């Protein structure tokens, strides 16, 4: 079974703090994603990466950055957390190609910024 592991399930941070959300996948997938989930808005793509050190902006990249130094690990960084970044963050991974490959999700990280 594919496993996507998000290291922190629940975090509480203060406004202005730097926040790291870590994600690891064990299936040697090329693609990795960070989504944000908010009630009534569904899931929105923040960033994705299709290879080590490669990244592309999604629909809502403002206020976020990412890092992919190793194939299995994809980090989401909030340089200076703000209260409007309180949300559920979901990491995902998939194999490459355009064959409709399934995207596999982690269990999510609930971030509260106070």
């Amino acid at each position, binding site marked *: 079974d594919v496993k996507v592991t998000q290291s922190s399930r629940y975090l509480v941070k203060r406004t202005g703090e730097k926040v790291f959300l870590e994600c690891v996948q064990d299936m040697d997938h090329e693609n990795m994603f960070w989504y944000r989930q908010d009630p009534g808005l*569904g899931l929105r*793509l923040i960033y994705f990466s299709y290879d080590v050190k490669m990244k592309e902006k*999604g629909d809502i990249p403002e206020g976020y950055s990412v890092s992919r130094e190793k194939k299995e690990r994809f980090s989401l960084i909030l340089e200076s957390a703000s209260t409007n970044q309180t949300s559920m963050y979901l990491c*995902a991974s998939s194999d490459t190609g355009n064959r*409709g490959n399934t*995207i596999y*999700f982690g*269990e999510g990280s609930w971030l509260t910024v106070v």
Partner: protein
Amino acid sequence: AQSVTQLDSQVPVFEEAPVELRCNYSSSVSVYLFWYVQYPNQGLQLLLKYLSGSTLVKGINGFEAEFNKSQTSFHLRKPSVHISDTAEYFCAVLQTGANNLFFGTGTRLTVIP
């Protein structure tokens, strides 16, 4: 541009009754279609997906969906729901040649005993 519309944000249904969760999409290119389920405090799990071939797709937990190209719909159905089906359901599209999913806003299914 692409969009996914889930017409119902909440669907209450009695246990053992049938349910249909609606999904419509728009895209200028061909797409693959997915339904994911999210149980409370968990990530998303794939229910089923349509890539090509038969327009009726069967998934896990007794769910099925029908791809209707002319109506650009991909509605999810189950003939008899259980309490354990209470969850949020997301429809998503993947444009051919793209890597990331585009999601609808979700439908919360509540099964009433």
